[in-house]
Structures are given as C-alpha cells and as structure tokens.
C-alpha cells in the first residue's frame, strides 16, 4: 500500500516534471537553442510565489501576474538580442552549440549570483493547501494534486495550440525544418522568439506550481534544468505527449528509487537513467524510428 502511495506521489511529481520539460522542449525544439539558464526562470517563479504568500499575503497563483510577464519578456529579449547574433555568426551547428552553452551558462551564473545576493542562499518554502486528500486508499497532499492538475491543463492547452492553430502549425513546421518553413511563408525568427519566450513563461508557471510543495533556494535552478534536460532527451526533441510521458516516468523512477534505495541518491538515479537513454536511444524513447 505504501508502495502505491509512493508511486502516486511519483506520478503527481512527474506531471510537474513534464510541464517543466515542455517549456525547455519548446525552446530547444523550435528555436534550437539549448537554454541552460532555463531553471533560473523556474526559480524566479518559485520566489515570486513565495513573496506573494509571505509578504503580500495573497494566493501564490496571483504571483503569476508578476512572474509570467517578466519571464516571457526576459526570454524574448535573450533570444532576440543574445541568441540571434550567435545564430547569424555561427558557421555550423557545432560552433553554435558551443557558443550557446557558454552564454546560457553565463546567464545561469548571473541570475543565480543575483538571487544569492538579494534573496540569500537559504532554503525557502511556504504552506499552501497542505490538506490530505484520499485517492483509492492512498493519501496525498492537495497542493501536489493541484499542481499536477495545473500541469496537465497547461500541457493540454499547449497540445491544442500546437495541433489546432495556425501559430502551432508554424511552430511544428520550424521544428521539422526551419529553412523550409521560411520558404513557405513562416516568419521563422519572430515565431522562434515567441516560442522561446513561451518556454520561459512555462518555466515561471511550473516554478510557482512546484513551490507549493517543494522547498527551494537560489541555487535550485540548475537541478531543474538538468531534470528538464533528462526528460527532453528521453522524450525526443520536439515531442509534446512524449515529454509528458517521460516526465511521469522520471517522477515515478525518482520516487520509487528514493523509497527503495536511498533518498540521498535521487540525482544519481536520474542521471543513471539519463545516461542509459543517451547511450542506448540517443534520439529519445518516444520518437518514431
């Protein structure tokens, strides 16, 4: 029974992982930029929610009014003014990758350093809707359930956007081939910038969602970037449903591994999973061959 409860908690956590990875996948799949500072916007979203609850005494959901526009605008600016010059200058994808890795690592350090200076390195957390809910005999916290539902709703919304709107069709076209998309009349740069910014906004939302039940600090961003990356690589670049499934898988593996082996080894377990996928199926688990 306790195993089922652990499993269920893994699923609920995995929903958030799926959402976090969706944002990164949007950036990586459409704009072809691997943003290693991605987790910092998640950390920013979590801190804004914390301030909303502790300082302004309002619901953490209202913090999105602040964090969402900031994350969106920051990521749009980063793409437009930091990444586009690199894309123009790069002779090939390898050279671009190296530049992007360095710049986004630099952004990671700047954001993290800034947060450490102004918000300190202490572990933060707040209590919101921490009431028990019973599902099939297992007990889970309401905030975890709420965060899972929020993640699912957003993922569905994104799925609808990608499958049933013109903008979504343009995004999918760029994911498949940016040059061909340009030929058939998609404004590749503008659309990529929007996708990149939307990815950053998703990071801020997921930061707010997970801050309801996980404590965080100024340095947690990196950890979630790594997790999001593991999920994206497991799922395959540019896959929406695959990303959600891989997120759930990661959540369950992490929860079960922590329970059955040792909670101190969760990163090691995640990373072992990542390495296995990378070595055995580098194109992702959920891609068509």
């Amino acid at each position, binding site marked *: 029974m306790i195993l089922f409860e652990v499993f269920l908690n893994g699923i609920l956590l995995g929903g958030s992982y799926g959402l976090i990875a969706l944002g990164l996948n949007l950036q990586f799949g459409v704009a072809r930029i691997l943003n290693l500072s991605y987790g910092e916007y998640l950390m920013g979203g979590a801190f804004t929610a914390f301030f909303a609850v502790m300082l302004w005494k309002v619901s953490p959901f209202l913090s999105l009014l602040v964090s969402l526009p900031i994350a969106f605008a920051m990521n749009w600016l980063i793409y437009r003014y930091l990444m586009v010059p690199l894309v123009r200058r790069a002779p090939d994808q390898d050279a671009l990758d190296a530049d992007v890795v360095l710049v986004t*690592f630099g952004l990671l*350090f700047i954001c993290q350093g800034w947060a450490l200076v102004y918000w300190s390195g202490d572990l933060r957390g707040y209590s919101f809707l921490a009431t028990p809910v019973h599902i099939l005999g297992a007990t889970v916290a309401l905030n975890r359930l709420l965060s899972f539902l929020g993640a699912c709703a957003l993922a569905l919304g994104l799925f609808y956007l990608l499958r049933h709107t013109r903008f979504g069709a343009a995004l999918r076209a760029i994911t498949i081939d940016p040059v061909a998309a340009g030929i058939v009349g998609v404004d590749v740069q503008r659309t990529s910038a929007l996708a990149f910014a939307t990815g950053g906004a998703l990071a801020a939302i997921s930061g707010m969602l997970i801050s309801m039940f996980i404590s965080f600090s100024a340095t947690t961003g990196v950890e979630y970037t790594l997790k999001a990356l593991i999920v994206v*690589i497991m799922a395959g670049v540019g896959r929406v449903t695959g990303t959600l499934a891989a997120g759930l898988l990661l959540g369950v593996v992490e929860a079960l591994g922590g329970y059955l082996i040792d909670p*101190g*080894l969760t990163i090691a377990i995640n990373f072992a999973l990542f390495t296995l996928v990378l070595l055995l199926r580098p194109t992702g688990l959920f891609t068509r061959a």
Partner: protein
Amino acid sequence: MGVLFALGAVALALLPLFVSSYIISVFIVLYANVALATAWAFFSGTTRYISLATAAFFGTGIYVLAVAHVYMPVAVALALAAVVGFLVALVIGLSTLRLRGVYFVVFTFGLTELVHQVINWWDIRFNKTASRYIFTDVSNTSIYWTLLAVALIAIVGSWYVSRIRLGYALRAIGEDETVARHTGVDTTRVKVICFALSASVMAFVGAVLALRYPYVDASIAFNSNWSFQVLIAALLGGPTRPWGPAVGAIPLVMLSEFLAGTFPHHFGIALGLCFVVIVYFLPGGVAPLLERWWQALRAPRDPGATHTPFSSRLAARLRAGASRLEAGGRT
C-alpha cells in the same frame, strides 16, 4: 622565446626563497589553475568536446589521496591518484565520447554531480561520517614546487604534442571528425587516450592540493565551480595555443582571490559576465591577440620580413610615380 620561458621558470622556482607564505599560497592556487586549464584545453580546446568533468577528475584525485595517504608514502599516493584518474577517464571516455556537442557537455556536467552524490552516500552509509581527515607534514614550499613543475610540464607537454602526429589528429577531430576518420585517424583511440591523459593531470593536481586541506568531504572535492573556473580560464586565454590557458588563469585567480573571500556571490556574477564577454567579444581568447602584438613588436627588428634595401624601395617608388604620370594623375 625558449630562453625567456626557461628564465621565467627558474625565476618562479626561486620565488619561495624571497616572498611571504601568503604569496606562496596564492601562487599555489595559480599553478593549480594553470595546470588544470592547460590539461583541459589539451583535450577540449583542440577537439571541441567541451568537458565539464574537470571537477570529477580533480575530486577523484583528492579522494584517492585522502583514502590512500594513510597506507602509503605521500609520493606513492600522488602517483596512484594520477593512475586512478587515467583509468576512470578511460572507462568514461570509452562509453561516452561518441556523444557530441550539447549532449557531451550535459553528460560531463551531470557526471560530477553523480560521483559527488554516490561518494557522499557511500561515506555516510558505510563510514558513518561525511568527511575524511588528511594528516601529512608536506610543506607549502614543496607543494609550490610540485605544482610549478606540473604546470610547466603540462604547458611544454601540450606544446610538444601540438607538433607531433597526435596533435594534428586532435585538431583534425576538432575541425571535422568524419573527415578525420576518413583520412585514417583512429578517432576513438586518439580521443580516449588524450581525454585520459588530461584527466590524470587533473587528478594529480587535485591530490597535490588535497595535501593542504585538513579534511575533505564530497562537496569540497566535487565542487563543479572548479569545472567552470577552469573552462573560463582556458577560453579566456585561448584554448588553441599551448600557453593560452595559463594566460587566462592569471586574471581569473586574481579576481577570485579578490572577490571569493569577501563577496562570494559576486564572483559567480563575474564568472557569468566573463562567459558572455568571451563569446561576444573575444571568441578566440586573448592568446591570438597577444600573438599579433608580439609579431608587430618584433616585425621592425626582423631584417628578413619588412626591411627591404633602400635601392629597391626607391625603384618601387619611381615605378609607382611613373605609372601615376602615365595615368595622367596630378597627386
């Protein structure tokens, strides 16, 4: 150039006889960074496989020393650290050097975290303590000389390798691995051997530095800041020249001496800004710039290159004047 290098090395070797122990310890950190950055650039600078596993190998060296120095003489423990670093990198290299670009970067980044967590878990689970004490009586001056020697050997070694077949093979891999393979380079062997060589230097440096610590734990040994600082030093200096990383390490160590003690978080921001500045304004590092200045400085004194005899310069000027006249120009 060679004479200057030798004179500089002798001067640095004699330095501890004249300066305070604080200066010696700053230089120890500098040499460690120079050796690490040179070793990093030896593999990653030439092949463009950007590795963030420096801290993993460095920490391996620290841990080997911390565990082994109880059972054997310090010199043997240091050698053992280098050997273990080599073997660990050999295994990791064989399984992962087929990853390219971003995947390799992320893999090596995660590797450090993995080793960190596993060792921490192991220590708590089986040794009931997270830290290990180091008891040695090695003086700071011996550490100074050892690290100076390692740094010099690393620089001279990567200069030497850049002139033999192995160096050409490494650069060929960096430019285009498929082409390198088709022209007969055994890319896997070259990559794995050089990766392991560079890792063994990193492990050795870690082991030597560990002699200065009273105790170590997994978060000291496997701190990924080492990976980033070394990467920045190498890129700032210029990873394509054997002496470039050494040039980059100097300002970085000074910056960290200045900031890390009093404003540790600002050091992170400064590192981040360094990354951004390098990519946008110094794509090849400082070394190519310095090389150009050096050549400009030497050029007037170099008789073969620019100093042409007066008669031929006069003849050239006359010819130019004649052709202007023919063209009907007045100036």
